[in-house]
């Protein structure tokens, strides 16, 4: 199946029962699959009037107690930013898949890119933490969409699946395991007296249990800065306390959240860093480099945000340099460069978008720079 279909199937396997969408190339097939599958299993699909509404609808559905998601591409992702912020501030779980295409603006609608990575990190206003995953095959899209739901439910925040046109439209074999073999996570629900419940009082794990609409907790949720009761409080202290919670729940669980993979990394002198479709370029490039006697290894970022800062930092102590390969003109490259703290040089093999990067370009850079 294609990556887009695998994304829908991953969502369903994770327990998604609501999809609010809006057509956009190259993500439309996710919505199409959901429109077919959800009503069969008691869920609901709706095509909203725009992506602003699609995002608002999935935040609402999640507050009503249902796992929810949407899928889009660049222009729609821009429109979703407002309510991604609402989900962050109200700590509402949901999943957004961005099947990236080349931008800016309408760009190349049918051709892929990886240029929304910084938008994924910082696209909604204000400061916050977010989780973004980057699959490199339809099979990975399937699993990572499940992981996205699980992390989203566990940490109560929107999780982004940053796929792209190439793998979204790539058809490959996808193995879907039995439901009993798929681990799914659901948000912690409150216990105890309803009248004493504080919607934003964190549990021992730093995350507040979530009451859903209609259960009698009479909760209030707002995008204004709020206290533990969920009530708006317009003070610096309240802002500090709320921000502390939404930052720490991610920052203090980096080991649980961040996933990376290494390929021929143990003895590598040069680390190639990449994610998503460009991982495929890098696997080929590493083998070729080794044949040429260049000791390259590949670090694949499965979780792009939060960024594996410590890992890059540690690697920088012992390697000769880094090469980031991505279909943009330097986004994750900036992160790598930052995390090397000047201990090793960082290079970019980038592309403005529309096609994949051939391994030769990586080899050329390796030959030139090292």
């Amino acid at each position: 199946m294609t990556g887009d279909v695998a994304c829908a199937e991953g969502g369903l396997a994770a327990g998604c029962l609501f999809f609010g969408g809006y057509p956009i190339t190259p993500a439309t097939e996710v919505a199409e699959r959901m429109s077919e599958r959800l009503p069969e299993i008691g869920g609901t699909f709706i095509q909203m009037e725009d992506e602003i509404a699609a995002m608002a609808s999935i935040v609402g559905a999640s507050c009503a107690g249902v796992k929810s998601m949407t899928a889009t591409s660049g222009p729609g992702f821009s429109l979703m930013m407002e309510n991604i912020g609402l989900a962050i501030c109200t700590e509402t779980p949901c999943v957004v898949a961005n099947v990236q295409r080349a931008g800016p603006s309408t760009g190349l609608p049918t051709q892929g890119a990886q240029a929304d990575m910084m938008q994924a990190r910082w696209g909604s206003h204000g400061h916050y933490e977010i989780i973004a995953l980057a699959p490199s095959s339809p099979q990975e899209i399937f699993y990572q969409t499940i992981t996205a739901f699980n992390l989203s439910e566990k940490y109560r925040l929107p999780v982004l699946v940053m796929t792209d046109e190439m793998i979204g439209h790539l058809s490959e074999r996808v193995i879907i395991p039995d439901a009993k073999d798929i681990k799914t996570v659901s948000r912690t629900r409150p216990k105890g007296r309803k009248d004493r419940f504080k919607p934003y009082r964190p549990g021992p794990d730093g995350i507040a249990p979530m009451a859903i609409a209609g259960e009698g907790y009479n909760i209030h949720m707002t995008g204004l800065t709020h206290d533990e009761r969920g009530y708006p409080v317009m003070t610096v202290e309240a802002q500090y306390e709320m921000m502390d919670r939404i930052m720490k729940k991610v920052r203090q669980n980096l080991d649980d959240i961040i996933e990376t993979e290494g390929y021929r990394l143990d003895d590598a002198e040069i680390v190639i860093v990449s994610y998503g479709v460009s991982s495929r370029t890098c696997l080929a490039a590493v083998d070729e480099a080794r044949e040429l006697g260049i000791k390259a290894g590949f670090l694949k970022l499965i979780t792009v945000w939060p960024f594996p800062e410590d890992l890059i930092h540690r690697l920088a102590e012992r390697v000769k340099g880094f090469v980031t390969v991505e279909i943009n003109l330097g986004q994750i490259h900036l992160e790598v460069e930052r995390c090397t703290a000047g201990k090793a040089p960082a290079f970019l093999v980038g592309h403005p978008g529309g096609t994949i990067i051939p391994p030769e370009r990586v080899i050329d850079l390796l030959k030139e720079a090292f």
Partner: protein
Amino acid sequence: MTQTKKSSGHPLDGLLRLDRIPHIWCPGCGIGTAFSSCLIAMKTSGIDLQKTVMVSGIGCSGRGAGYVNLDSYHTTHGRAIPFATGMKLANPELNVVVFSGDGDLFAIGGNHFIHAARRNVDMTIICINNFNYGMTGGQVAPTTPYQAKTTTTPAGNPERPFNLPLLAYASGATYVSRWTILHTRDLMESIEEALKKRGFSFIEVLAPCPVNYGRRNREKALDSLKIYQERTIIKNDAHPTELDIDFDRGVILGKFIDLDQPTCTEMYDKTCRPKDLLYD
């Protein structure tokens, strides 16, 4: 204005978040009256309050959700309706009430309004129309009368306002009414009727914003109430095309539309679900 004090055993105590009173609404503001009419209607309607949610957008009226002691959601500017749509479709057992202002629902949120009406999503929309953006200090809104003064139309509004009931009707709303905060009994009855009715219900409530709109248009809070009394005509079943707001000619109030049509959820279940999945 909500006349609730902590000590006074107010009939709406159970429905108000007393720990959030005093509210932010200015003296003479009409929102509080509309809000308490809404709460009374919720009580008298006999709907299951545990299954009732209030969703608001942004603005003075949008603060409504913050004061009601129900599951309540204060969302983003203009997006109360799509948020509420997600809630209703995800859990059709919920009674969904959207309480927000004219700028929120019809300028930034206009697109969402017409589509939710078209779909006949089963929800009740209470729109406080005070002819301007109160929260931000009195700017022109899509409801501001022609030539009225606001901070962004210092020479008078050069644009024409929406006729909201006509817009609601044309978009497919199955219940449409308009009242003012002076007509509290009619307003409460109308809200109660809308709450009990399935389908997309729209109630426009004319309310004074003396601080920002009234002040710039030589209309004190009491003047507004006087106008609501003297220059309104109750005419149920009036055709929505007659409902332009012009206080010089008289503004028509009443219930204009009351239709029984299948809701969004009913049509979805009927059309999209396999027949053997149609439980209740």
